[in-house]
């Protein structure tokens, strides 16, 4: 009786059948698992295909805008933003492959002294993969003598390496070259002879609703949110009656929303997070600086806007250049500088973004 009961009780007994079946199953599972990474990519396994890595790197660089897709870090403490960048794609937009942003190119190839990538960061953010690949990424823009190299790269070896060559265009930012000799009568106003001094604004208007318009192809779009814009004022009083002017001074700038309203942005330092103002290529404070004589010295006034100085980009913004005029006498009527220059897609107002041919070579080994 005892013996029979022991046989019937199968608790916690493994049969030979099960052991054999389970062993076969586990063995085949292990084989499948070891095959799968090679099938999927051929990159993570030992069987490294350098060409595939070079191809992937070139696709990420040339066709992807990166993450985040806007690198508007020219302004404040750019180094702290490096940790936020997960992927370094240089394209202007995901809709426009092979069109690279000049701003991103400058960052990527370490042309901005405040923003340097290390070899480790290139590997983490653009080449990827667990293996510390060696690389050489170069870019040559047509018409420029210099070839740009990604930092930390080494000379390409003679032996086996992965290689990819991509043809691209580099989108140069727009600028407004306002030479007043080219706009006769457009930016002057008459003044009664008895008024012998006046302070006026010459304004550059950014109609954001026109500029940041989705119907404009991103390759040609003027986007002050992600690209710098430059305004150059030259020959400022060429259209005024110089013999009538006792003095004309440049006093600073102000950012204002359309329809009056209060000033936008802090203006105290000459270079803050939104802009840099220069007179004859020397830094100049946006407000409160010593006034610059314009009528006799004929200075070049340059304003570079790195970033829209407000988050409310849907409102058109004025950049006002303030000039004070003092006239010699009240014998004749006067003219003074005033007017609004539109920063838009009109080629007579703004030098449009230009696409320059370039070639990128990626070598990985």
């Amino acid at each position, binding site marked *: 009786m005892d013996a029979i009961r022991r046989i019937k009780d199968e608790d916690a007994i493994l049969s030979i059948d099960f052991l054999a079946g389970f062993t076969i199953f586990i063995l085949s599972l292990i084989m499948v698992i070891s095959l799968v990474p090679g099938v999927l*990519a051929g990159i993570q396994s030992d069987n490294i295909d350098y060409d595939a890595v070079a*191809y992937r790197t070139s696709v990420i660089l040339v066709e992807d805008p990166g993450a985040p897709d806007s690198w508007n870090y020219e302004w404040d403490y750019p180094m702290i933003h490096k940790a936020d960048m997960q992927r370094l794609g240089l394209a202007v937009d995901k809709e426009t492959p092979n069109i690279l942003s000049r701003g991103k190119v400058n960052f990527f190839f370490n042309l901005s002294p405040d923003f340097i990538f290390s070899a480790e960061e290139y590997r983490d953010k653009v080449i990827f993969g667990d293996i510390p690949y060696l690389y050489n990424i170069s870019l040559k823009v047509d018409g420029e003598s210099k070839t740009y190299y990604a930092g930390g790269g080494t000379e390409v070896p003679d032996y086996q390496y992965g290689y990819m*060559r*991509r*043809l691209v265009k580099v989108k140069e930012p727009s600028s407004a070259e306002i030479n007043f000799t080219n706009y006769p009568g457009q930016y002057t106003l008459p003044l009664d002879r008895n008024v012998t001094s006046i302070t006026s604004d010459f304004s550059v208007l950014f109609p954001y609703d026109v500029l940041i318009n989705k119907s*404009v192809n991103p390759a040609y779009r003027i986007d002050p949110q992600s690209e710098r814009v430059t305004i150059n004022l030259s020959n400022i009083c060429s259209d005024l009656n110089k013999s009538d002017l006792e003095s004309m001074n440049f006093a600073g700038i102000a950012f204002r929303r359309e329809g009056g309203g209060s000033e936008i942005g802090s203006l105290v330092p000459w270079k803050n997070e939104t802009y840099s103002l220069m007179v004859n290529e020397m830094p100049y404070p946006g407000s409160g600086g010593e006034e610059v004589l314009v009528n006799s010295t004929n200075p070049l006034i340059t304003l570079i806007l790195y970033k829209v100085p407000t988050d409310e980009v849907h409102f058109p913004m004025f950049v006002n250049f303030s000039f004070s005029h003092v006239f010699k006498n009240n014998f004749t009527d006067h003219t003074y500088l005033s007017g609004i220059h539109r920063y838009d897609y009109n080629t007579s107002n703004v030098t*449009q973004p230009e*696409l320059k041919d370039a070639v990128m070579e990626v070598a990985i080994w």
Partner: protein
Amino acid sequence: MNDEGQLYTIEGITAGVIMLVTAFTIFNSGLVYTPGDAHISDMQIQQLGYDALAMMDTPAELGPVKESPLAEMIKAKNDAGFKSEFNRYLTLHTGTTEFVDSLEFNATVFNRLKNSGAGTVHSYHFSNSTMSEVSMLTREPAISVTRYVWLSDRPGGSVDSEYDNGGQLVLLEVLIWRR
């Protein structure tokens, strides 16, 4: 019979492990599609060709109805212009690696006729590289790259049997091979 603590547990664990490994493998892999390594040199030429056509089909500036240099060449039947421009793009390099200028090409345009011939496709030779003698002996396979190009009007000098009037899309096919 009491089955507690036997095979069902192990099967469950096995199934769980399989699912986890599958999911982990799929979601953890890079997702850039990469052509197989057997045809990597074909792929490089093909990518270069597509890039060159795309760049030639991109106007340098924004214009209301600005045509690309490529469209202008097809419209003017400018085969010499295409030859030098396409060759210039194929030979652009940064100087980082040793560059060998060894690519040859042959371009054909395809357009569809709606008015005469009732939808037949018309094609003609557009341009080609300077064929060297070595090129005639080549055994390298040719790679085909294509691009649809918008023309605002039919090429100058064309007659109705060659081209419909007005704006149309034509297909440009370029065969590229290494000599």
